[in-house]
Each structure stands twice: as C-alpha cells, then as structure tokens.
C-alpha cells in the first residue's frame, strides 16, 4: 500500500465561482458520504480537516496581483489516502462529488521513505 495526497482545487475567488455557495451546501452530504466510503475501506489516513477560504500566499519580494492573478483555483481541501497504485487512487478520486462543478482533484503519491 502507498499513500496518496488528494488535493481538491476549486475556484474560491471569482464572483461567479463554481461551485457556488448553494452548490457547496448541496455537496456536503455527498462529500461526507464519499469520505465515509473511503474510511469504510480503511483507506483514509487521518481525518480530513476543513480549511478556511481566507488564506495567505507568500512569495519572495511579494508583488500583489502577481503572475498568480490569472489562476482562479485555490486549494479547497486535501487529505491522504492509502491505495495500491495510481490506478486505484485515481478511481477513488473520481468519486469526489465536487468534480461536477468544475473542481479538479490532484493526486500525488508519497515517495516511500528509504
């Protein structure tokens, strides 16, 4: 078994962000069911936390509205799962209910400690 980081990116900043606050509200149950399903397979590593939408971004010689101004997506959530390989991790990630509103899920495998 390997560990994989699932990072959900979504638009938190735009005025007409998708998912909208209403869509996010509707996503709570499917999201909980999704995470619960991963936990029921004993593939969840640690409880997912909720992260605020405030946040800070740090760069050397900070320039406000720098090159990242073009990027609309922020981290919406992240947690770690257990899976055999990328195929299995991706299969699990596909269950993310926020995908339908334009979110993306980034999957990264932890490099095994040698």
């Amino acid at each position, binding site marked *: 078994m390997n560990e994989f980081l699932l990072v959900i990116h979504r638009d938190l900043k735009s005025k007409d962000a998708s998912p909208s606050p209403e869509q996010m509200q509707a996503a709570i149950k499917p999201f909980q069911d999704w995470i619960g399903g991963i936990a029921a397979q004993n593939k969840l590593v640690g*409880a997912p936390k909720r992260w605020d939408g405030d946040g800070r971004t740090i760069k050397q010689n900070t320039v406000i509205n720098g090159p990242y101004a073009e990027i609309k997506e922020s981290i919406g959530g992240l947690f770690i799962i257990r899976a055999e390989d990328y195929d299995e991790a991706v299969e699990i990630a596909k269950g993310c209910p926020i995908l339908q509103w334009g979110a993306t899920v980034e999957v990264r495998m932890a490099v095994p400690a040698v």
Partner: protein
Amino acid sequence: MQPQELLPHLFRTEYRKIAAVLCRLFGIEHIEIAEDIVSDTFLSATENWSLKGLPDNPTAWLYTVAKNKTKNYLKRDTIFKQKLLPEIKYTTDSTGEIEIDLSAKNIADSQLAMIFTVCNPVISAESQVALALNLLCGFGIQEITDAFLANKEVIYKRINRAKEKLKESEIRIQQPSLSEIGNRLETVLTTIYLLFSEGYYSTSQNVTLRRDLCTEAMRLNYLLIENPATNIPAVNALFALMCFHASRFEARANDHGEMILYEDQDELLWDRDLINKGIYYLNQASTGTSITKYHLEAGIAYWHTIKEDAAEKWENILQLYNSLLILEYSPIAALNRTFALAKANGKPAAIAEAEKLNLSSNHFYYSLLGNLYTGIDNQKALGHYETAMNLATSANDKATMAGNVERLKNLQE
C-alpha cells in the same frame, strides 16, 4: 430476606467496597491479604448469621467485623507490622488505634483509585477486564470463566499474572492527579466498554450473568460520573451509549436465549427509563470541544431507539457512521455504515460500496450482502446468506444466518 438470600446480595455489593478500601490501605503488594480478610469476613457472616439470625444492620456488621479482622491481622503479623505499618496510610483515633475508614466517601475514593489501578496499560486489555471483574466487581473465578466461555485455569493464571505485573511495576493505588486523568481515562473507558460488550455480545447462554456484566460496567462508569474530577463529556457519552444498548436487553433474546434481530424486536419491551437516562447523559456529554467515538456511537444508539424507519433517522445514522469511520476504522462500523447507506441512499448505491469493503473472511459481510441483494437478486442473496452461514463459527450466529436463509426461501415460494 433470609441469610441465604441476603448474603450473595451483600457479597456482590459490599465485598468490592471493603476490598477497595483495604487494598488501598495495604498497597498493591498486599492485595491478597486484603482479599483474604474480606473473604474471611463473609465466611464469619455465613457461620454467625445462620446460628444467631440476621443482625439489625448486616452491612454495618460486615464493616465492623472487617475492621476488627484487619486490626487483629495488623497486630498479629509482625513482619507485616515491621515492614509495612510505618508506610501504610492509616489514621489513628485518640486511643492510637488504627482507624479503618469505611465511610461512603472513602469507599468511593478507594473504588475510583482501584479502577485506575486495574486499568493500567502495563497489563493487557483482556487482563484488565478479567481483573476488573475480580477485584472491582467481586466476581469469582468460576463466574469470570463462564462469562468468557474460557478455561478456568486460563482465567486463574490470567488474573494472577496481571496482579504480579502490577506488583512488579510498583503501581500505586491512588487516584491520578487532575493532569494525568485525561490520558489515563481513555484506558479506563476502553476497559469499561469491553466489560460491557463482553456481557452484551457474549455468546454465553447464561443471561443473568451477561446482564450482571453490563450492570457492573455501568456501575463503574457511574463512579466516574459521580466524581467531579472524572466527570468529563466522554464519560457521560459512554454511559449514554450503555443505557441505550441496555434498554433493549429484554427484547433482544427469546425465551430460549436465541437472538432476536433489531427489526423483529418488540418495541414495548424496550426499557423507556433507560432510554430517557441515555438521552439525559448524552445531553450532559454534549459540552466541550472534543467528539469521541463514544459520542458518535451513543448518537447512533440513540437513533436506534426510534423504531420507525424515518428518512431522517437513517440519514443521521449514516453521517454518524461516516464520522466514526473517519475517526477510527473498524470492520463492524464499515459494515453497519453500509447498511445505513442502503437505508439512506438505496440498495444499489450500498451494493457498489459494499463490494469495495474487502471483508471476505467476515460472515457478517456476507449476511450484509445477502440483505442488500434481497429484492434485487434473490438468488444472489441466497448464495451470500449461505456463505455467511458456513463461515459463522458460534452456534448463535449460525442459527441467525440459517434463519435468514429460511426466511428468504419462504419469500421465494
């Protein structure tokens, strides 16, 4: 009450109180002396009361005799006197006599100190449960053997090894400090819950004994509620959980001791007083910032006290199981969560999730699949139920699984 009825009752209620006070007085290295003195006290009661009839106040009689026997022992045993007397915690009255304090407060304090002594991580969880039954609940080796469906010799060794281990580790019989309680309480609650589960889920046919185990677990838990230092939300949550479970005791077995499934239980046999008690303690538990697995399990048990299949009920149970699994995985929670998922989101969704569970050596897994496929593909359902029946090991489980097969066959005809 006649002596022959009263004595077993007093033995159950008073043995552990006197034993706790004496154990704390003597220290862990001499618990056998404490146990001998208490046993001897009850022996005297048996002989004396059958000859002379019951004293006016049997409990006070026991306390006085136990005190005198202790004092005599301390006077007589010179080694004990020289080595231990300077160290032991005792108070002396004006005459310089050792005062053995059997006041309600000291009994409660001593019992609490004993709970923390027995539930010490230096001994294994199963030893903690056995020792708790023996030292804290006054159960004999035979009773513990019956409850565990174990070999008497095994239990005897387990208890003695546990006592030796506590002595070797020089565990002091004392209440932990306020700062220690947080860490230590978790082990205590685990042991109390194991003790309860041993009674609740045991396959032992002795229903009275099983019920006693549950009552004892609740009593120990209640001691923690009564003491302000240990009366924290998790303690109340566990008590609520046990109240909800215990409320169904009468309804969950038939006259032959066979299990009756939740959906077939007669709701009128559920104990409303215990349910209300559970609700009260669950409210008491709903303070502070941490949610423990006892809170979540008590919440699940609470929703089970409502018999009707309302959508709200199963949605709540599903979300509580989601949270429980996120907090701590267990196969049984995974199976129950999938059952709740079927009730809340429908059987097809639950079947898809069930097939990911990877619990193919667990007979409950096949009985869940049997349940999910019933009405969707009865042939498949039957196959799963039969697999479950073959995998089940205990006679009780086999009978339940056979009942499922039978029920489905009747449905098909």
